[in-house]
């Protein structure tokens, strides 16, 4: 662990950019390739990179396992919640048209929220799976 100063510094340097890229992929999904799933994978990968370089323990301090485990169902809940709100507006499940004043804006809002839900679940699942594998001792 002493000789990898370069790795540590480089990781610190690029992590913010990778995260920004993840956010870009998330929000640019409407105009270019990308969306919640891809962004979630990239964001999850940053945490994994951090864990690889700085060790599992410090990654767990940064992103606790309990938080990750709660985020996995939370993302799906956000997604399904948008559908339930569709019910409350008197429409069918996952009908976003009544979420805003006019249907097009409603659709935009719905897609935005739904993609956010996907992002939460995907990124959390990536990290959770990595923690689970990495926390397992070699036999």
């Amino acid at each position, binding site marked *: 662990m002493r000789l990898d100063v370069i790795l540590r510094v480089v990781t610190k340097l690029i992590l913010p950019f990778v995260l920004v890229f993840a956010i870009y992929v998330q929000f640019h999904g409407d*105009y270019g*390739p990308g969306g919640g799933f891809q962004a979630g994978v990239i964001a999850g990968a940053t945490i994994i990179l951090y864990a690889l370089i700085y060790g599992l323990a410090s990654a767990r301090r940064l992103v606790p396992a309990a938080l990750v485990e709660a985020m996995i169902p939370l993302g799906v809940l956000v997604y399904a919640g948008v559908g339930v709100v569709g019910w409350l507006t008197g429409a069918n499940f996952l009908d976003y048209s009544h979420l805003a004043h006019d249907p097009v804006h409603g659709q935009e809002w719905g897609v935005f929220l739904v993609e956010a839900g996907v992002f939460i679940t995907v990124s959390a699942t990536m990290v959770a799976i990595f923690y689970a*594998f990495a926390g397992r001792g070699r*036999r």
Partner: protein
Amino acid sequence: MSDLIALVGDVVAHYNQWITVFLMVSGLYIVIARGNMVKKLVGLSLFQTSVYLLYISAGKILSGTAPIIDPHFTVYSHPLPHVLILTAIVVGIATLAVGLALVVRINEAYGTIEEDEIFKRDDDR
């Protein structure tokens, strides 16, 4: 005989699907023939990826472009196969993750990940 020639002609005309079939067969062969559990899962992924090409190439239009609306283009490839395959990729990686987790546990319980070994050890008990 002419039927056969027509069939061969059809097969040749679908050159883009050859690769689908080839990938599928290799994947399926690895899954069934090999006893190593990790290798089986790699074969399974290969098998699943072959499906991607089947769908995506059906949606492709040769003069078309990616289905992102832009005033410069008028012909776009069909977006629906892309959506379906996105889902299929996710399902594939999810299966791979669960499968590998099982392999890790099996290795801890048996000390091996070769199917033949495992069956032998269970029969001995």
